[in-house]
Structure formats: structure tokens, C-alpha cells
């Protein structure tokens, strides 16, 4: 299968964003007539690699080689000219333009007056669709196409530019099984015509079905490049996650109390379906799953920020009105959102104002806020959380990320909730502060708080949670108790494999 020179070679490439090294010294070849899988956890650096190949980012060090010659891409146009076509997870079509125009953009057939030859353009599109075996009207606008059809238009685009290297970043994430089969048939025929395919997916059955070779990445580093036939799915997963689960996250043992939150058959069309679980006092329950599995959407629906179509949310046995965060707060629920800058804090307000924001009403006298009570409440909680700050009157934006997260926590803890929902509690926080946030969550649970946590970090999930609910594509894929939850079992469930053999 392997040919003498690779169509495309990634050679010792590194890329950093600020202080974060997204990709460090990664090398792998893409051969013509071969489909090559790129796998790794969320944040392993796959998308950064794709963006470098697409000409969006430039590598800090290392080189890309096309047909053995070093290339430098100043922009996407250069990558395109080198014969690289990229199909992104989110299709990048122009919704207002016709399908044929989308395919031909930048490459339109021209008449002698250098006008666009629409007839030829439509004929080309028809021909491409015929080759792909699909029926789409080239004159219709791209707006309103299903994701699968958009994906096909993207492929037609790649075909029309005669790309020799096709890069697909999770093209199947939004497709149904039939549509995936269809896509694979097309990709296989391209491969058999000599194109090199780079295929990114979280679904192992797809990788074993489609690809000959696989490159595994972890934390921005290259782990291995091997023939798929030589590796079992177990091997791949182990190499993807393979890091030490140190005793970073000391979760105290707590005897669970009464049921605080009860969610049954929660559904929202197109987002999640039939989600049921409960959380008891003193328990930490983690919602795990891949990006896009619907975790944040579920907790937002539970809290009432987002609507849901059917299902019941009960807090301490009492049914909660849907779509009403105020009622949820009154019932003792608190939500620490994923993006603290956008949703959790008013960056320009002082620390004390931020902490007391959800409680203003209770602190107010005659409808007015006076400094004293506000300051006392803020001081109490920031001290308890060991927040490092100058003065309480400083703007929140002056704090570090970890301390900002503590202010968000302080803000909600000051409402004395009985159920705390935290979405990605340690995203963008350094290791030391992470452990502190974990210690805090653990001690809160020990005091009888029920905690529902959404996290993409497996070590955090495994270290903190009494129970792990794994979501996949909007459904509950598995519920694992603390002793059943391992990196492998969670990843298997998240990616749609049978439980570890």
C-alpha cells in the first residue's frame, strides 16, 4: 500500500497559542490511495493540525511537505492550490449562494468576456452530483440543506478543485448511519482513484471500516502511527488516554442522602432525548461525553435557561416549572456556567457586586443596596474559598482565571443552594487551582450539597464523581458507578462501543 513518497507529509510540526502548546513535534505521512485516521481526545491537537494543513494557521516550527517538497501556506488559497481540500466538522458553505456557486467559488468557468458561465457552472455541478450519486438541484440556495447534503456539497467542492489530498474533520458527527455509509462509499472511490484521505472521527467502528493507517495524538504530542489492522480498538483507546490517574482529586466518601434532583425522560428535539437520572444530597454526579453529546444543553434545560419539549424535572420531589431559572434558583438550584467570562461574571463590576448579584433582593433594604451587608456577605464567601484578591472593590477582570472561577462559585454558594450544577468547573485553570476547586467541591458535597458536574476531563470525572452518566449523541449511553468507571469504560460508552471486554 505504502508508496515511495507521501503525497503529504507533516514533519516535526509544532504550534503554540500564547503559552499553550497545542501541537508539539508531530510527524506523519499521508499516502495516495490510503485513508489515514487521526485520533485523540478532545483538545489533543487534531483540529490544530487540520487548520495548519488548510493554511489557516502556520506551524511555529517544522514543515509540511507536498510530494516531497517543502511548502509554506500563507493562507487557505495556497493550501487549495497545493491540492488540499478540507471538509470541516461544521460545513462552510455560503447559505445565500446557489449550490453550484458554492462548488465553483473561486474557480468559476468564465466566458470570453470574463463573465461567469452559469450554464457551464451548473453542468459541472450536475456532473459532480451524478458522480457522487446524489440528486441535488444545483440552482437551489445552500441555505436549508441538511447537514448531510451540505457535507456532500463540500465533497463536490473538493472534487471540482481536483484535490489530491482530502482532509475530513469529523464529517460524520452529524450524520445518520445511512448517510455515513453513503459518504464512505464516495470517500472509498476517491481513495481508490489515488487521493490521500485524512479522516478524523471519534467513532472507532468508522476508523476500522474506512482507514488503513492511524495516527494517535495525546496532549498535542504524537503517540503512534500504525496500520489499523495491527491495532485493536482497545490499544487505540489506551494510547489515546494513557496517562496516570494520580490521586489529584481527593473525593471524600459521603453517605448519600435524600434525592435532591430527579430528571425523567427529558427531551428536546434535535438536541437530547429521554434523559433520566437523579442526584442525591452529598453526591457528585458527573455528566461525561464527547463535545456535542449534549451535556451542557441538558444542564441548561434542567436549570431552565433552555426550553425542553417533554420530560419532568423535580427538585426534592417538587416539580419545577420549565424554562424558568428564577424558579430554579428559588428551589435551591445554582448553575455555574461553562464560560465564566460570558455567562458567569460581569467582568467590569467589583468582586463584591459579582458575589452578591444573585441575592441583591435579599440584601436590599427598601429596594436599595447598601454597602455594608453586601461587603460582609462577599467577604465571608471569598474568605471561605481562599480567593486571592486585592480588595473586594476591585473589578473581577483583574483576577486570574482560577480566582475568577472561585468568585463565580462564591456568587452561587452565597445563595445557599442545595443543588449545585457546575459546567466545566476547571476549564482553563492551572493544575494547582484545579486541585483546590476539586477540594472545595468535595467538601461542599460532604456538607450535604448535591453536585451535578459537566466535565470533558476524564481524570476529573473519575476522581470526583460518585456516579458517571455518559451521554452520547443526546442520549444516556451508560450510567457507571464509581467502581465501574474507568477511562476505558467511559470512553467506550462515549464513543459508542460495547463496555470493556
Amino acid at each position, binding site marked *: 500500500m505504502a508508496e515511495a513518497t507521501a503525497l503529504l507529509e507533516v514533519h516535526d510540526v509544532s504550534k503554540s497559542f500564547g503559552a499553550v502548546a497545542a501541537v508539539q513535534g508531530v510527524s506523519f505521512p499521508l499516502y495516495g490511495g490510503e485513508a489515514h485516521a487521526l485520533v485523540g481526545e478532545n483538545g489533543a491537537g487534531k483540529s490544530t493540525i487540520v487548520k495548519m494543513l*488548510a*493554511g*489557516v494557521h502556520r506551524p511555529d516550527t517544522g514543515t509540511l511537505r507536498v510530494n516531497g517538497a517543502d511548502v509554506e501556506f500563507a*493562507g*487557505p*488559497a*495556497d*493550501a*487549495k492550490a497545493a491540492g488540499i481540500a*478540507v471538509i*470541516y466538522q461544521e460545513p*462552510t*458553505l*455560503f*447559505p*445565500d*449562494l446557489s449550490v453550484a*456557486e458554492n462548488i465553483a*467559488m*473561486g474557480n*468559476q468557468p*468564465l466566458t470570453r468576456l*470574463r*463573465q*461567469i458561465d452559469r450554464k457551464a457552472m451548473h453542468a459541472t455541478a450536475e456532473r459532480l452530483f451524478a458522480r457522487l450519486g*446524489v*440528486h*441535488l*438541484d444545483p*440552482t*437551489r440556495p445552500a*441555505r*436549508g440543506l*441538511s*447537514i*448531510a*447534503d451540505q457535507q*456532500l456539497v463540500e465533497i463536490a467542492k473538493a472534487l471540482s478543485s481536483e484535490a489530491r489530498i482530502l482532509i475530513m474533520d469529523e464529517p460524520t458527527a*452529524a450524520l*445518520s448511519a*445511512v*448517510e455515513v455509509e*453513503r459518504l464512505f462509499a464516495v470517500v472509498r472511490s476517491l481513495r481508490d482513484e489515488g487521493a490521500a484521505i485524512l479522516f478524523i472521527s471519534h467513532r472507532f467502528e468508522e476508523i476500522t471500516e474506512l482507514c488503513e493507517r492511524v495516527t494517535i495524538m495525546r496532549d498535542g504530542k504524537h503517540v503512534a502511527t500504525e496500520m489499523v489492522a495491527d491495532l485493536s480498538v482497545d490499544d487505540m483507546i489506551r494510547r489515546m488516554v494513557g496517562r496516570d490517574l494520580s490521586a489529584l482529586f481527593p473525593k471524600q466518601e459521603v453517605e448519600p442522602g435524600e434525592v435532591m434532583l430527579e430528571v425523567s425522560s427529558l427531551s428536546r*428535539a*434535535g*438536541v*437530547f*432525548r429521554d434523559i433520566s437520572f437523579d442526584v442525591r444530597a452529598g453526591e457528585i454526579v458527573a455528566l461525561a461525553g464527547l463535545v456535542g453529546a*449534549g451535556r451542557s444543553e441538558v444542564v441548561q434545560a434542567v436549570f431552565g435557561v433552555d426550553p425542553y419539549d417533554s420530560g419532568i424535572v423535580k427538585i426534592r420531589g417538587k416539580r419545577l416549572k420549565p424554562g424558568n431559572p428564577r424558579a430554579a434558583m428559588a428551589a435551591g438550584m445554582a448553575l455555574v456556567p461553562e464560560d465564566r467570562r460570558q455567562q458567569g461574571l460581569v467582568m467590569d463590576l467589583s468582586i463584591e457586586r459579582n458575589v452578591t448579584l444573585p441575592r441583591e433582593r435579599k440584601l436590599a433594604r427598601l429596594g436599595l443596596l447598601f454597602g455594608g451587608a453586601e461587603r460582609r456577605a462577599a467577604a465571608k464567601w471569598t474568605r471561605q474559598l481562599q480567593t486571592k484578591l486585592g480588595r473586594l472593590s476591585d473589578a473581577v477582570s483583574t483576577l486570574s482565571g482560577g480566582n475568577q472561577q472561585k468568585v463565580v462559585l462564591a456568587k452561587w454558594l452565597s445563595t445557599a443552594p442545595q443543588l449545585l450544577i457546575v459546567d466545566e468547573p476547571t476549564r482553563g485553570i492551572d493544575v494547582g487551582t484545579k486541585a483546590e476547586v476539586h477540594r472545595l467541591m468535595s467538601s461542599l458535597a460532604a456538607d450535604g450539597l448535591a453536585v451535578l458536574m459537566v466535565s470533558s476531563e476524564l481524570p476529573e470525572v473519575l476522581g470526583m464523581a460518585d456516579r458517571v452518566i455518559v451521554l452520547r*449523541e*443526546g*442520549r444516556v449511553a451508560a450510567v457507571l458507578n464509581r467502581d465501574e468507571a474507568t477511562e476505558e469504560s467511559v470512553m467506550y460508552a462515549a464513543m459508542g462501543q460495547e463496555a470493556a471486554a
Partner: protein
Amino acid sequence: MTPLAIQKPRKPAMNFLKTRELGIVLALAALILYTTISNPRFLSGQSIRDNLLNTAILAVMATGQAVVVITRNIDLSVGSVLGFSAFTVATMMSDHQGLPMIVAIVVGLAVGAVAGLLNGVLVRYGKVPALVVTLGTLYMYRGIVYQWAGGSQVNADELPAHFLNFANDNFLGIPWLVLIALTVVGGATLVMRNYRVGRELYAMGSSPQAAELAGIRVARNLLGTFVLSGALAGLAGVLFAARFGTVDASAGTGYELNVVAAVVVGGVAVFGGSGTVWGAGLGALLLTVISSALAVLEINQFWQQAIVGALIILAICADRLVAVRIARSLRKRDAHV
């Protein structure tokens, strides 16, 4: 790929029936009919001529604005650019009576192009939204004209006759102003419709991110767009000076809103990506005819503003309605979770 329904290509005639442009033509026809019935002189030669001359300046500016809005930007500085250009050209012509008209036009275009280039550079390289940039330059350009002109104005009797006559002269029976406006609207429509660069501008407005990823030369196109809008506002300044003869520092104040109104009413989506230049030209015509019709019908002029406002809201509501309906049907259709 769900059911392999073969979508039949719609017939061009059906497409036209659905366009906003047809709606404007119908509205225009109804308005003219109604006004003419109550006052037949509305369709007299002089009245038509006045309407067309009044439309010309607005249509020239609406052309540039339409192109800018199609790329999901906006140029609010056009009124001030018009003032700048009008005062520059009027001053020049009064100082050098012998200069031919073509020089005036070129100078006007150049002044506008420079102003537009500054807008484009600030938007692209300053990474500031066009709304903010051009709001700033709206005041800046106007401020410069005030500083320069002080309280002075250029009067018609200081301007050479051939310059003033240009606004009234005909060429093959069509007034020069109308001819220029038709050329500008027609040319831009053609480029936007049939040339690569035009389709790239639509693409940029339709999805800025995708445009970058598709390798479109976004920076070049964006600068070109703002230069065009500025240059056309500069040209409009020359026409303004020739038509009205008297130019002071406040020439064209508030025009930007008329221009944006014409563009929006003409069916160019404020979120970019759709609409046509000739639609914007029709929008300019409709707004002009409305204001003269109200005068003929002896309706209070103040109503005009309310009517224009209602038209804008109607136009935007129509856009939103369509977008929401499509989004909803898409969400339901794709729901395989």
C-alpha cells in the same frame, strides 16, 4: 440525502415573481397610479424629470452602499463624503472657471475614494466594526469640511455655467445625471451578478468565516468595496454641487440614512449576502417618488418620514420571517436525535 426527491429547477419567471424587486415595482406602480388619479400633473414631463433627477444622486450612493451592505458591512460616512467632495469640487471650479466637467468628476471620485480607503483600512486592519468606524468618520469628515469652509459657502453665481448646466443638459434626450445613475447602477449590477469578484462579495457577506477558508482575498475585496462606496459618494457630491449650485459645509447632512433606507427597502439584507444593486436603485426611486407624491397629494411632509420608517421595518420583518421559517423547518428536518 433524505428522500432522494429531485428538486425541479424553478422557472426563471417564478423566481422573478418571488423577488423583492417585483414588490417594489408593484408598490411604485400603485403609488404612481393613485397619485396620478388624484392629480394628473404628477405624470407630466417636468414632474417625471424632477423625480428622476432627484433619484439620480440617491441611486448613485445607494449603489455603493448596497455593495457594502452585501458584504455584511455598512458605510455611514457617505453623507459627509458627499459634503466633502461637493465643497472641494465647488471651490475648485469657482477658482478655476475653465476646468472641464470631466476634471470635476475625477476629482470628486478621487476625494471619495481616499475617504473610503480610510474606512476600509480601519475596518479591515483596525478590526473595528464598520458601523463604528464609519460613524466616526461621518463626524470626522464633516468636521474637516466645517473647519475648512467655516461659515462660507460657494454660490451658484461663482460657478462656471458649463458646470451648472451639466445638471440640466441632456444626452440623446436623457439628462446626464440620470444617465450616470443608470450606468453606475447597471454596471455594478452586472459586476455583482456575473463576475467572480461580485460573487466573492456575496460570499463574504453570506459567511465571512467560510470566505476566509475558501481562500477568497477578503482584505482586497473589502478595501475595494469601501473605496467604491466612497468614490460613488464623491461622485454624488459633484452631481449635488452641479444640481444645487449652492454648496456649504453642511451639504449632504443626513443623506446616509436615506441611502441606507433605499438599500434596505430595495431588498438588500442587512446581514449581508443577498439582495441586488438594481433593487437598491429601485429603492432609491421609490423613496424619491414617495416624497414627491406626498407633496402632490398635499399630505404633511412629516408623514414621509413615518412612511419611510414603516417601509424599512416591513422590509426587515420580511427578511426575518423568511429566515426564521427556514431555520425552523431545518431544525425539525434534521432532528434524528
